[in-house]
C-alpha cells in the first residue's frame, strides 16, 4: 500500500457511515459509480446502529418482555421472581449490534465500496484529507456529507466516558442501574431511555421545559403514555429547567428552576436528552462553497445539493426531523441525482415512532398542526377498547386517529398510540403518499382480529359507520 500523499480517486466520496451515508453509498455503487466512504467507526452503521436506534430498541424490547411477563399473572401465567443480569443484558445488546454491523460490512464490501476508517476534512470542492487512514488524500467528483449530529450539551456539564452525566451514548452502555436517575428532556431519547432505566429499577425523575411530553405530538396521543410514565417514573416535572449541574465522586447535584417543588436535588446519574446539534464543524466546510444556516445545519435543496454544486448533504447535519429512515431516503436521492436521475426528496409523510410502552407513531399532518394553520380537517378516532385484538392482548388503552380532509376525503395524517404502533404506521404513510381517500382505507380488508384493523375502522368512522364503534351523532 502506498502511504503518504497518495491520492485516491473516486466518483463519490461519502463522509459519514450512518444510515444516511451508507444508504447513499450503496445506492451510488448500485448505480455504477466508484464510491469511497469515510467514517470514524470500524464499520458503517453510525449512531443509529452503535449508539442509538438499534441498542435502545433492543433494550426497550427487553423491558417490554419484562412487563408482559409481569402482567401475565393477571392472565393466569406466573413466572418465578424477576432477576436482571445486567452483564447478560449488555452482552445481548452488543450481540444484536454486532450481528447487524457485520451485515453492513459485508454489504459494503460486496458492493465494492472503499471503506476508510478515519476522519475526513474537505480541502476544496474536489479534495478531502482523511486522517488516521491508509489513504490520506481523496480526489472526488462529488461528495455527500452525512456527518450526522451529536447530543446537545448542557451548560456546565461534560459528557465524559464513564461519567455520571451521560448522553444517550453513555446511557446505552448500561454501566450500572443507578438508583436515582434524572432525565432532562421529554422527547424521544429521554422517554425511551428513561423507560429502560425505570423498568430496570431506577427511580427516574424527568424534567421537561415544555408543558407536555413529546411536544409536537397531538396531546390525545401522548396522554396515554404520560399516564403510563406517571406510574413508571418516580416523578415528571413539566415547565422545569436545569439551572446548575455539578458532578462529584458519588453523585450529581442539580438545581432546578420552574414548576418543580424541590429546587435542589441529588442524583446518581443524569441523562441529558435536550436535543441534538449538527456535526457541521471541523469537516472543512469553510474550504468549499457549502453554507450552513444560523443553527449550523447545512443548507440543501430538494435534490440534497448544497450551495456547492459538487457537494451534497443528507441526514441530521441538514436538519429537519432527525430520523434514520429520513436520512436513508435523502441519501438515496443524493446518489441518484449525482448519477443524473431526476430524483428529489419529495415525500408527503415522514413517519416517526416512539418505542415506549405504549408506542406512539405518527405520520403526515397532526391535528395540532392543522389547527395552527387554520386548516379545516375532520379527525376520527378508534379507541382500542373496541378492538378484539387489543383486548385479547391486554392492551386496550391504545387509540388510532386519522386526520382527513373533509372536502376531498384525503387522508392527511395518521397517529397511533399503543402496542406495535410503529409496525402499523406504514399503512398511513402509504395512504398519504398515494393520496388515498378515507374510503380507500375503509374499503381495504384488514385481517380480523388485528391491531391494524383500527386504521380501517378509523377510516370507516369518517364515512359514517365503523363496525365496532357507534356512529357519531350528527
Amino acid at each position, binding site marked *: 500500500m502506498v502511504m503518504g500523499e497518495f491520492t485516491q480517486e473516486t466518483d463519490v466520496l461519502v463522509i459519514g457511515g450512518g444510515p444516511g451515508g451508507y444508504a447513499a453509498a450503496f445506492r451510488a455503487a448500485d448505480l455504477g459509480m466508484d464510491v469511497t466512504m469515510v467514517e470514524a467507526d470500524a464499520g458503517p452503521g453510525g449512531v443509529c446502529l452503535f449508539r442509538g436506534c438499534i441498542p435502545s430498541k433492543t433494550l426497550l424490547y427487553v423491558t417490554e418482555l419484562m412487563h408482559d411477563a409481569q402482567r401475565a399473572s393477571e392472565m393466569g401465567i406466573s413466572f418465578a421472581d424477576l432477576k436482571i443480569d445486567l452483564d447478560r443484558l449488555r452482552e445481548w445488546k452488543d450481540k444484536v449490534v454486532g450481528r447487524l454491523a457485520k451485515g453492513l460490512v459485508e454489504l459494503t464490501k460486496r458492493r465494492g465500496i472503499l471503506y476508510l476508517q478515519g476522519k475526513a476534512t474537505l480541502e476544496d470542492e474536489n479534495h478531502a484529507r482523511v486522517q488516521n487512514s491508509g489513504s490520506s488524500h481523496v480526489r472526488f467528483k462529488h461528495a455527500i456529507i452525512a456527518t450526522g449530529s451529536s447530543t446537545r450539551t448542557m451548560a456546565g456539564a461534560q459528557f465524559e466516558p464513564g461519567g455520571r452525566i451521560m448522553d444517550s451514548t453513555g446511557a446505552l452502555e448500561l454501566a450500572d442501574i443507578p438508583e436515582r436517575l434524572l432525565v432532562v428532556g421529554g422527547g424521544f431519547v429521554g422517554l425511551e431511555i428513561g423507560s429502560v432505566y425505570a423498568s430496570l429499577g431506577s427511580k427516574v425523575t424527568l424534567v421537561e421545559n415544555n408543558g407536555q411530553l413529546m411536544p409536537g405530538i397531538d396531546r390525545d396521543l401522548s396522554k396515554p403514555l404520560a399516564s403510563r410514565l406517571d406510574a413508571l417514573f418516580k416523578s415528571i416535572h413539566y415547565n422545569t429547567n436545569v439551572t446548575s449541574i455539578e458532578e462529584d465522586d458519588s453523585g450529581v447535584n442539580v438545581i432546578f428552576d420552574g414548576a418543580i417543588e424541590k429546587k435542589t436535588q441529588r442524583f446518581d446519574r443524569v441523562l441529558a436528552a435536550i436535543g441534538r446539534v449538527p456535526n457541521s464543524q471541523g469537516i472543512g466546510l469553510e474550504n468549499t462553497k457549502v453554507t450552513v444556516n444560523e443553527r449550523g445545519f447545512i443548507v440543501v435543496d430538494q435534490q440534497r445539493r448544497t450551495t456547492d454544486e459538487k457537494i451534497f448533504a443528507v441526514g441530521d447535519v441538514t436538519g429537519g426531523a432527525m430520523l434514520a429512515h429520513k436520512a436513508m431516503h435523502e441519501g438515496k436521492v443524493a446518489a441518484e441525482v449525482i448519477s443524473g436521475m*431526476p430524483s428529489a426528496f*419529495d415525500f408527503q409523510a415522514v413517519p416517526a415512532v416512539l418505542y415506549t410502552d405504549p408506542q406512539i407513531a405518527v405520520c403526515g*399532518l397532526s391535528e395540532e398542526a392543522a389547527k395552527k394553520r387554520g386548516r379545516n380537517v375532520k379527525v376520527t378516532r378508534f379507541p382500542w377498547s373496541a378492538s378484539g385484538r387489543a383486548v385479547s392482548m391486554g392492551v386496550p388503552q391504545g387509540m388510532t386517529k386519522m386526520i382527513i380532509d373533509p*372536502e*376531498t376525503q*384525503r387522508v392527511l395524517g395518521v397517529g397511533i398510540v399503543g402496542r406495535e404502533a410503529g409496525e402499523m404506521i406504514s399503512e398511513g404513510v402509504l395512504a398519504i*403518499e*398515494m*393520496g388515498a*381517500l378515507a374510503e380507500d382505507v375503509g374499503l381495504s380488508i384488514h385481517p380480523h382480529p388485528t391491531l391494524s384493523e383500527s386504521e380501517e375502522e378509523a377510516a370507516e368512522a369518517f364515512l359514517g359507520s365503523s363496525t365496532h364503534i357507534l356512529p357519531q351523532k350528527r
Partner: protein
Amino acid sequence: MPVEFKLPDLGEGIHEGEIIEVLVQEGDKVEDGQSVLIVETDKATAEVPSPVTGSVKEIKVKAGQTVRVGEVLMVFLKQGEGEEEKAPPPKTPEEKRETRPPEEKEKKAEAPAGKAEEVTRGTEAEKRPIEGPVPAAPSTRRLARELGIDINRVKPTGTGGRVTPDDVRAFAERAGGPETEIPSRPPLRKETEEKIPREKPPEGPEAPPLPQFERVGQVERIPLRSVRRTTAKHVAIAWSQIPHVTHMDVADLTELEAFRRKYKEQVVAQGGNLSMTVLAIKAVAAALKKFPLFNSSIDMESEEIIIKHYHNIGFAVDTDRGLLVPVIRDVDCKSIFDLAVELKELTERVRQGKASNEDLSGGTFTITNVGPMGGTGLSPIINYPEVAILGMAQARLQPVVAGDEKNYEIVARLMLPLSITFDHRVLDGAEAARFLNMIIEFLEDPEKLFIMS
C-alpha cells in the same frame, strides 16, 4: 303531467340512432306499446313503442335526425289528464304553438340529461381552494420529474383530485416539452367537459388532412351514417389493433356437395336452406372445440386471453344497408338441420332490417363466404374483438392429380379455397394450419363431421 319520452338505452354501447320514420302526429291517440317511431341504430332498425296510453302532445324529432340516448323524442299526455280526456281534440295552430316554446322548436338537444347539474358542481369545485401537496403516488411524482413537468399544473382526473400517471403523460404531450412557468393550482375536480366519456380513438398516427378534391373536379359528399359508419370505425379499430395473418388452403368438397344435394330438398321442405355456409358453420364449431384459442379474445390491458366456453358463430351478410354479421348462438348444440333453418330465418330478418341487437351481437368467431360472388381467395378483416375469421371463396371444379408421380390420373374435383385470418398476438401460423386442416378434414369427409361434432 306530460310524460317526456327519451331515447332509451339501446344496449351494446349504442348511444345514438337515426330517426327513420315518425309514425304518429301531434294530437294522435296512442296505446301503451304502440309503435310511434322507427329508429335505426348502428346495428339494427327498431320500432320504438309508446310508454303510455294517452295522446301525443309534442314531437321533438323528425325523420333523418340523429338522436342520442336520453334525448327527449316526444312528449305524451297520459289518458285522463287535462283536456286530452275529451273526445278527439282538433287543435288550432295557435294552440299548438303555445304548447311548444319557440326556442325549443329548433333546439338540438346535444347531451343527456344531467349535464347541467355537473356543470354547476364543476364550477363550485374550481372555486374551492386547495391546500397541501398535490395528491399523486410517489411513482407518479417521479414520472412528472422525469418528464420535466410541474405536477401542480397537471389537471387531475383521479378520485379526490388525485393526479394519475396518465394525467401526467397527457399533460406532457400537450405541453410538448419541459415546463418552466410558475405553477398555478389546478381545480380539485377535472373540468366538466372532461367528465363526458370520450371515445378512445384507435391508436396510431393520425391520417393527414385530405386534399381539396373540389379543386380537381366535381365531387359528391355522402355522410357516413349508421351501418357504413359503424363498419368504418369497427374495421379501422380491428385493422390497427390486430396484427393480421392469413393462412390459405383448399378443401375438396366433391363428397360434401353430393351429400348436400342429397338432403337439400328435405331441408328446403322444412323451411331451411342447406348451404355451404351451414356446413362450414358445423365444421368450424367442431374444430373450435378442439382449438379453443380460436374462440377467444385478448385483453392487452390485463394481459389475459379470454377463452369463451360458448360457440356463437357470426356470418357476414351483404344487405342493401351494408355488411352485417348476424350470430347463431350455441352452434355446437344444434343439428345441421336446425342450423339450416335458423340461418335462413336470420338472413331474412337481417336483409329486411328487422334483426335485433341480440341477433347481431355476442359472436365468438366469424365466417365470411364470398363464394356466391366468386373469388379464388380472400383475406378478410377479423371481427374485433374476435381473434380469427374463416374466409370461403368460390368452390370450382378443378383438375386434381390423384395418385403418385409414376401412377396418377387427373380427375375433376370440386375445390373450395379457404383462408383463416388470425390474430398473431394470440395464435401462430402452425396452429392456424392445424385448425384449418381440421376444418378441411370435416368438409372433405361428411361422415367424419357427424361423428366428431
